[in-house]
């Protein structure tokens, strides 16, 4: 099916972040047809949008019902065979489609600018067209770099950096056993030492892969709790935001006695608004239950929108992120991080924009984010598989094959951590062993 001389099939989301009903995934490469056959069964007629069920060929599970377009080369953007999958807008759908594509043999996420490069290679673009694109590719590269950096912060980042360090160590030991086996400072033990290091990285990666991933977090959405004193205008705001009557709105304090959730889609990011009972100490049993639920909701939330009516109290007892919103601006309120009037609509757009920004910061934003995470996952899986092969090999009799698998593991890991070059390995080797007869 696949010719060794053909480049890999590459794919990437073609639609950017934003409130969209449809996400487009572009696929390019000489065996795109085979990819389509595996994911959506029959290949549609050329350049005609056709509805297809996308399935995971591994277990047959349905991913989405999508519009599929098939562009046989050379009359395509890249000049190769190409396809577009128009999926439903949900991020979890997009993430699962990207994951499934990444698991097909010879199919991988595109590097920054790779579609353009193929178009160029196949004479589908001119120099003028490309010069305009260079900035764009730089931006794409920069976004991926920043994303990688963000991944490398915190605990996971520390672990990933430690793996890079360890794989260099495992390679240095193995290469010492190969290239400097006649040196007295290189003992017979180095192969076993290299193996122990490789085993430890392999186990750590495995446990990282077993952890629940952030796409779940994205599916759950960004939780915003509306809180504030009774009659601060929480339910009115909720209705204004949701543009529908989701909660009972009443001028009498204490009407909302249950927790009500409204799901919003802000620029493609799922945001869940939670309306709560007014926070005030109450002897009313029903209302006390509402207050208990409110406190529980706040504890689970990403953000608390504290609604502050004119002359109302600032929040004094809520932990975590709080945004103070002065309500009833039409009545002259000017307290808070921003003010609005649910009645007149003033300030609602600003609030929505702010919520979207906060949500994106927390849950992630933009198609590049998902692909990057999928890219990381794919890289880790490949690293683990290479390490498995390295560990299964007979390192005494075939050190060079084990070394080859270590090199491939380092190459895969390098996609997250930055390239591991032979100079890194040699530096370590010469620092650790006294080489030179």
């Amino acid at each position: 099916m696949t010719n060794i001389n053909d480049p890999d099939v590459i794919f990437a989301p073609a639609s950017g972040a934003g409130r969209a009903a449809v996400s487009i995934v572009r696929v390019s490469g000489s065996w795109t047809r085979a990819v389509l056959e595996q994911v959506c069964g029959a290949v549609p007629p050329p350049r005609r949008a056709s509805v297809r069920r996308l399935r995971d060929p591994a277990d047959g599970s349905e991913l989405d019902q999508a519009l599929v377009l098939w562009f046989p080369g050379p009359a395509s953007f890249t000049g190769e065979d190409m396809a577009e999958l128009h999926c439903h807008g949900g991020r979890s759908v997009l993430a699962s489609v990207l994951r499934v594509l990444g698991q097909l043999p010879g199919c991988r996420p595109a590097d920054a600018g790779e579609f353009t490069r193929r178009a160029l290679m196949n004479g589908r673009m001119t120099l003028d067209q490309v010069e305009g694109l260079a900035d764009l590719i730089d931006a794409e590269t920069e976004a991926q770099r920043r994303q990688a950096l963000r991944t490398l912060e915190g605990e996971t980042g520390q672990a990933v950096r430690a793996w890079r360090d360890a794989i260099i160590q495992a390679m240095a030991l193995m290469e010492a056993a190969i290239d400097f086996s006649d040196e007295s400072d290189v003992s017979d033990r180095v192969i076993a030492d290299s193996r122990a290091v490789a085993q430890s990285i392999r186990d750590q990666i495995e446990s990282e892969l077993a952890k629940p991933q952030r796409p779940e977090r994205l599916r759950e959405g960004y939780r915003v709790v509306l809180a504030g004193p009774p009659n601060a205008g929480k339910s009115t705001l909720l209705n204004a935001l949701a543009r529908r009557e989701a909660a009972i709105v009443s001028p009498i304090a204490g009407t909302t006695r249950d927790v009500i959730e409204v799901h919003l889609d802000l620029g493609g990011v799922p945001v869940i608004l939670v309306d709560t009972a007014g926070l005030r100490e109450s002897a009313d049993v029903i209302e006390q239950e509402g207050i208990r639920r409110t406190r529980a909701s706040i504890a689970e939330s990403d953000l608390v929108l504290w609604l502050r009516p004119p002359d109302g109290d600032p929040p004094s007892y809520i932990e975590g992120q709080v945004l103070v919103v002065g309500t009833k601006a039409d009545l002259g309120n000017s307290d808070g991080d921003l003010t609005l009037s649910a009645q007149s609509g003033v300030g609602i757009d600003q609030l929505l924009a702010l919520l979207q920004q906060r949500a994106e910061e927390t849950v992630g934003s933009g198609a590049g984010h998902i692909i990057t995470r999928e890219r990381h996952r794919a890289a880790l899986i490949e690293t683990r598989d290479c390490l498995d092969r390295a560990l299964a090999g007979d390192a005494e009799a075939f050190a060079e094959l084990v070394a080859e698998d270590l090199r491939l593991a380092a190459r895969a890991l390098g996609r997250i951590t930055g390239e591991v070059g032979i100079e890194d390995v040699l530096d370590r080797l010469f620092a650790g062993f006294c080489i030179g007869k």
Partner: protein
Amino acid sequence: MNSPQSRFDVIVVGGGHAGTEAAAAAARMGARTALVTQRIETIGIMSCNPAIGGLGKGHLVREIDALDGIMGRAADAAGIQFRLLNRRKGPAVRGPRTQADRKLYRQAVQRLLKAQPNLTLIEGEADRLLLDDGRVAGLVLSDGRSFSSPSVVLTTGTFLNGLIHCGEHTEPAGRVGDRPSLGLAAHLKELALPLGRLKTGTPARLDGRTIHWDRLEWQHGDAEPELFSELSTRVAVPQIACGITTTTPEAHEIIRANLHRAPMYSGQIQGRGPRYCPSIEDKVVRFADKTNHQIFLEPEGLDDPTVYPNGISTSLPVDVQQAFIRAMPGLEDVQIIRPGYAIEYDYVDPRALDPTLELRACRGLFLAGQINGTTGYEEAGAQGLLAGINAARLAGGQDGVVVDRTKAYLGVMIDDLVTQGVTEPYRMFTSRSEYRLSLRSDNADERLGPLGEDLGLLSTERRAHFTAKQNALRHAMTVLGERSLTPNEAAAQGIALNQDGRRRTAFEILSYPTVSWGDLRRVWPELGEVPEKIVARVETDAKYAVYLDRQERDIAAFRRDEDLALPESLSFTSISGLSAELSVKLETVRPRTLGQASRVEGITPAALTLLVAHAKAAQRSKTPARSLHEA
């Protein structure tokens, strides 16, 4: 100026390992070639350790031999202790090595050169190049003689501004007892070449008659010596053993107490030395917790009492050398024949070279060996060979030849040099090749033989040998491809395969780690007719099959980028969209292909896209990229 006395197609300056291979290769291709050296009697001299080959290096010697070069045959003629390193590891990382009798080696090289048609040996000191409109036109010697030639290969080793250090004593020299090339160094400076300074060292030579050999352990050669050249059939001279001693805490103490007198530590030496060949003072400082280092005592020849103590290269003062050497077992009463020393020398930043080893700034001028920042006879020899080939092709009006990274260690080395430059003397290791499983010492002839044949480098004898071996190999592969077993049939013969019902060829069965050639022979007795050497080759291919298949995809991707030539006229500094830093880096390296550009440090995807665009635009406008003969 005197008018040139005679005309050559190629002039090679230097009679070391790079120079001899360059001159012989050019002459083999039919170019009228001159080799200019200070003293004809020192042609082929081994300035440092009396050994050829090793890991990575042995691979290079086999590649030189595959192109009918000199080094392999000379080493076989002079080898006095053959050892195949990593014999117990897989075939890709086995490296042939031999101790060589220094005199026999030199004689073998000189014999081969003197028998080489089209080659003239000229004694004299190169002083400057004749230039014509920025191109090489010939060479002038310091005695005033001049020769015209469109191609000159410089292989000046450590002679360019060479400065020897031995303790506080310094002395301009190319090698101990030889004058440095000062005139040529000054001349190269006029050409505004990017020069740097490197350092290397050598240990004291000992008088073997004053060593207590009875107090030492011995290292013997292999019972079945593995030779270098495909054309060699047997070991030529008697084999010897080496003694093994070690440094001692007392010796380390002497060195430590005298560090202030070591040029490396007093600031007297500026050049960078190699990390993998440190001086003994370096070892004692950097690995302070080690109380001893193993030292091999290698006789320099069968009838020569000189012994090379491998592992104690030093530039400490003579009295300190004597004191610490005598603190080692077996060397208590040893006499030093010649003290060790360090030497600093100029090298040219190899990024100024094309991958043909021709200087971009001066067409017709080729550089090979230590002048390019490398170390080692084998590294020098391999570069010399390629420089000689390209010098001859230039003289004949033909395109340059490039050997790429997938084809040979020679290609890996040259690509590393011209793309990355050097920060220390460059030595070959097998780990430098990402295609190590393909680039083996057992298949160098298959990898490079066809190129050698194309270029007219191979003698009749070599061609006949190559063809015969290829035929035998093809025959063996056919035989293995035609025979097959089902898992059940195999089980009946005592061979365990996956019980999947799939019929496998004998070659596929051999790829199982547990199956040996002997197992196959039990099934098919006719396999007994396959010669032993061919069996070993076929077994290697089978055992590596899975890995080699996987590597093919990488090689295909490599080739795609390597096949896209960047226009020679492309000005990297005028490409809009490239950062200033990157355009300067690209201008320094001036990559010839997209693939080479992708290996330039710090390159970005956007930059590569721009380069593709420019390459394609040039293709369309029919501006021919300077074509290279791809090996």
